[in-house]
């Protein structure tokens, strides 16, 4: 039923009719959310649960605006979030989008994303952590603070670790300055869960827990295709078939990082393509320059026993 609410109406109407009824559709259109959701749909492949959750949040924010206009208490919702998922499932990308949507909906004033890790928040010696954390928080004000691998903030094995101090400052700001910034914590699911167990204060201050699923094989192929498109390359039909096999094989091998593995593979394919063209020399046309052939894909070590296997002469 959410999707029904969210499908944009044909035309923007005045936001309020004679009986004082609000036109949700118009409100929705004015908020630029439809374009945003369309962008999201086009830019992000797969990630169904994530998109659904973002639609929910977007709808909630629009409804909140509507309630405000009719004089109902809207109360700024808590927008802090966690993104959990395996490497390369698009957490950072979505965080960037999130900053934009919150900005368009008017819940953050500037809409920039400050991406940090433990090193940016936690100091080296006593008295170093608080100023460091506060400095980052000040930079993130009016936008979104994205803490990657947030569980490193808390190191239970060292009771004098300064991470705890950073956590306390973060919690305080998350609670007291909800209007000024939105905090997104990201990391792998199991470690994130353990982190929350030892820091119950965090869990209760975060309203949205979004889990990023691994990509399906065909989604990864689609991602490769869109990366190629963006870089003005294209796969020959045979290369595309090889790519499907590549994805299946790569998934079974160690250090598989979803879309990130695909990005790296694509970068290597480009290198191989360049070298192939360079070695053949002679005349080349536009098509040769933009086509990645089956050979470029198949030369990968993934097909000859994985990245740990000794390099063969074929894999350059």
């Amino acid at each position: 039923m959410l999707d029904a609410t969210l499908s944009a109406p044909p035309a923007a109407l005045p936001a309020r009719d004679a009986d004082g009824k609000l036109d949700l559709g118009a409100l929705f259109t004015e908020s630029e959310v439809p374009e945003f959701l369309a962008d999201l749909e086009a830019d992000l492949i797969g990630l169904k649960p994530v998109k659904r959750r973002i639609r929910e949040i977007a709808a909630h924010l629009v409804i909140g605006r509507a309630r405000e206009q009719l004089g109902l208490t809207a109360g700024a919702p808590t927008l802090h979030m966690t993104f959990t998922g395996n490497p390369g499932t698009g957490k950072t990308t979505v965080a960037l989008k999130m900053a934009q949507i919150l900005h368009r909906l008017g819940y953050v004033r500037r809409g920039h994303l400050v991406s940090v890790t433990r090193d940016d928040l936690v100091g080296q010696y006593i008295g170093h952590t608080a100023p460091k954390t506060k400095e980052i928080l000040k930079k993130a004000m009016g936008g979104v603070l994205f803490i990657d691998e947030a569980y490193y903030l808390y190191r239970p094995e060292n009771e004098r670790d300064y991470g705890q101090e950073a956590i306390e400052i973060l919690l305080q700001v998350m609670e007291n300055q909800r209007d000024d910034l939105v905090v997104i914590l990201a990391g792998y699911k199991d470690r994130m869960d353990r982190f929350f167990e030892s820091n119950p204060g965090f869990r209760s201050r975060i309203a949205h827990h979004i889990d990023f699923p691994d990509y399906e094989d065909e989604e990864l192929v689609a991602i490769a295709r869109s990366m190629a498109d963006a870089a003005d390359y294209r796969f020959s039909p045979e290369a595309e078939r090889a790519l499907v096999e590549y994805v299946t094989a790569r998934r079974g091998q160690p250090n598989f990082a979803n879309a990130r593995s695909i990005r790296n593979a694509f970068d290597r394919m480009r290198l191989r393509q360049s070298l192939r063209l360079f070695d053949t020399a002679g005349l080349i046309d536009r098509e040769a320059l933009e086509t990645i052939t089956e050979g470029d894909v198949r030369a990968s070590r993934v097909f000859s026993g994985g990245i740990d296997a000794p390099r063969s002469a074929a894999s350059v």
Partner: protein
Amino acid sequence: MRITQGAFSFLPDLTDAQIKAQVQYCLEQGWAVSVEYTDDPHPRNNYWEMWGPPMFDLKDAAGVFSEIAACRNTFPNHYVRVNAFDSSRGWETVRLSFIVQRPAKEDGFRLDRTEWEGRTQRYALRHRAQFEAR
């Protein structure tokens, strides 16, 4: 005696919202904003105490304002001002400076006269709060 230094000092005191708007303007120009305080607002006292280092790379005035609030809390009876420094080539100077807090009662200055060589008289302006504090 009302101290008139920096911008806006002949206007009624700025409200918090107005301060935020001014700071936001500075940040949008790419200036580094800093907070300073003093108990001696003598016009020749250029160097007020710094409340932390200048703030670079901020996007929103909320960050600066939390520092202003902290400084006001710590020194409720001092003068507090905000400076915005423009580091771009050709300027490299403070572009905007304005007072964001003054003591509830502004004591003004006292004129000290000192006998000097011959029949010379030397005059000095001293902020009254300086004497009462010591």
